[in-house]
């Protein structure tokens, strides 16, 4: 049996988790930076990406609670026992350097080009491609778009951490 949450408790919990996770990332990065091998380029990129990702995730959850309507404020629907799966895996060529993934623009629904997902409602799993990784999945952070195929362009880049490597764009179609 689940105990209903009082109003605002869910938001407070989300906020506390977010603060905790952000702090944890900085502490871990600080420790690494102080160590003999240092944080390194990969670590810096990972740190930035993790921080962005935490911001997106935390506020995504908060927004979901809020737009769920009065039921959410009464604690009846903010928590899911499970989460819809991310998209099928998208294959990319391996590289010797890490890459950041981002949506270049909105994703359009297959067969309904007027229905689009804003890039802000799309995230990636993993959020950052370590060197040698050849797969990622697309994650929808707004369930109002759930249950259809979408086509969009994603950009793989090094955020300037590796010289002379231009960002690569590719078109993907995924079930979300």
């Amino acid at each position: 049996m689940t105990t209903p949450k009082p109003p605002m408790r869910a938001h407070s919990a989300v906020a506390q988790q977010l603060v905790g996770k952000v702090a944890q990332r900085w502490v871990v990065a600080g420790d690494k930076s102080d160590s003999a091998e240092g944080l390194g380029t990969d670590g810096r990129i990972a740190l930035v990406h993790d921080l962005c990702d935490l911001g997106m995730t935390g506020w995504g959850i908060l927004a979901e609670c809020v737009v769920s309507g009065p039921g959410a404020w009464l604690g009846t629907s903010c928590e899911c026992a499970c989460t819809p799966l991310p998209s099928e895996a998208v294959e990319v060529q391996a590289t010797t350097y890490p890459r950041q993934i981002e949506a270049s623009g909105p994703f359009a629904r297959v067969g309904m080009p007027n229905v689009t997902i804003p890039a802000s409602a799309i995230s990636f799993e993993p959020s950052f491609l370590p060197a040698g990784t050849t797969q990622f999945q697309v994650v929808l952070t707004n369930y109002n778009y759930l249950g259809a195929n979408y086509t969009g362009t994603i950009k793989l880049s090094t955020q300037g951490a590796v010289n002379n490597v231009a960002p690569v764009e590719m078109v993907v179609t995924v079930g979300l």
Partner: protein
Amino acid sequence: MSTLRAILEMQGCLDTAVVVTQDPRVMEIVDAFLPDSSANSQWYQEIEAFMFRPGGDSGGEGDGPRTTADPVNALQDFQEGVVSGGPPPTPLEASRLIYGIGAVIHLTRTVQIASMPFSDPSADERGQSLLADVFALTGGQAFEQRAQFFSVDNIDVIAELFASQFNSWKDWIPVSQQLVTLGVLTQNAADIPLCNACVITYDGIQSVVVDSVLSSNQVSLNALKAVVDPRNWHDDDPSFFCAMQYEGLRTDGWRRVLETVGFCSYPTAISPRLVTMLKFFKTTVNPNGPGRYEARLDYELNDPFTTPPSDGKITVDHGFINMWTGDNGDPNQPPVYVRTRKVCHIDGLRPYTMKRFVCLSGYAFIVANMLFGSALNPDPNAVAWADSPNEQPSDLDEQPPGGSGAQAPPSDNSVASTAISMVAKCVEELTVKQFDLADKWMSGQLTVAELAQHSAEVGARIASEPWKFIQAITQPKGGGK
């Protein structure tokens, strides 16, 4: 007699046990097999009341809505349904029924209390006889030789397996493999994953989302494409998809189909149907060179909603079936990989009950029946994947102004739009600050003071943002936005 109703009743026994005993030990075990069931009790009688008409029992005993479930009654229903000439159970049906039997036997052998509304079906002669029949059917054995396969001793071995090793849904995979060895399940049935269903809020409506990820080493992409068109769903799963009537091409390239689902073996006077006008859209990817072949089927409620003669009971119903070969695979050769998603809401059922209904009925799992049934033995009259290029849009065109793709976008009521714009703004600001900080770090200019200030800002923003939100949504924006 209905295989589907037998599966419903067998799993419904768990709900009945919770309702009747109100015993925490029973609730704990039931929740281990059907998570959150005890917190949403009476879902069994809710589905019965939804799918069967009161007073509809003139056709025979038990045809009206049932309020309590009994395992022996479920076994008898299942056995009679097949013996009286019904089709043998599909791997999906066999898997779901055996899951229910295993859970019920585990429950009755683990918690022995006087208030339990039924006893262990494997403990008496009548139950043992029915179990032998049912196991023969679910295991794909010759029905005439069931007594040889499933003696009383064998039944006891199987029941003991359920009692000692089947403790929750997490044990299903190893237990189902043992059941294959014991002849109770076919390998195809054991390969079917459990129903992965969640309740989410879609466009302000609590809906069930069901995901599945499957593959087959027996079926090719082209064999699956040959049966996957929605016009074939009645042939793929005739127990629940009573009819799929084609209603023509739309001007935007989607096609309409009138879906009729329910407990098809009962007349509509006893069990009413759910009638929904859907539209669907097929896309194919054939690589020019190395790559993988892909095919995607999207489906959606036809618009405008509701399109007559839909009954309007299903108010959310969309999803996709995505299929592909391996890298550089041959579309005419196995394996094929499949991913499906279905999002639906049925008016008149609680969210948890919807979840149980969708999982029990196989509503969101029709592709399993294709992979392990119709794609292996295709009907030569099945509607092919490729449609005629000469087909013209039909007259039944009620598409909204705006032409192709003018489907209503997701809700943008004042709360949602306010929340989204605030979130976007906040994320943008925090992200910029984080990038600035990381830049300083990389150049070795980050000071402890700056880091401390940033942490304080993040904390303050997060703490105050919900209250800002409340303030923002109380401001009238006009124009209904």
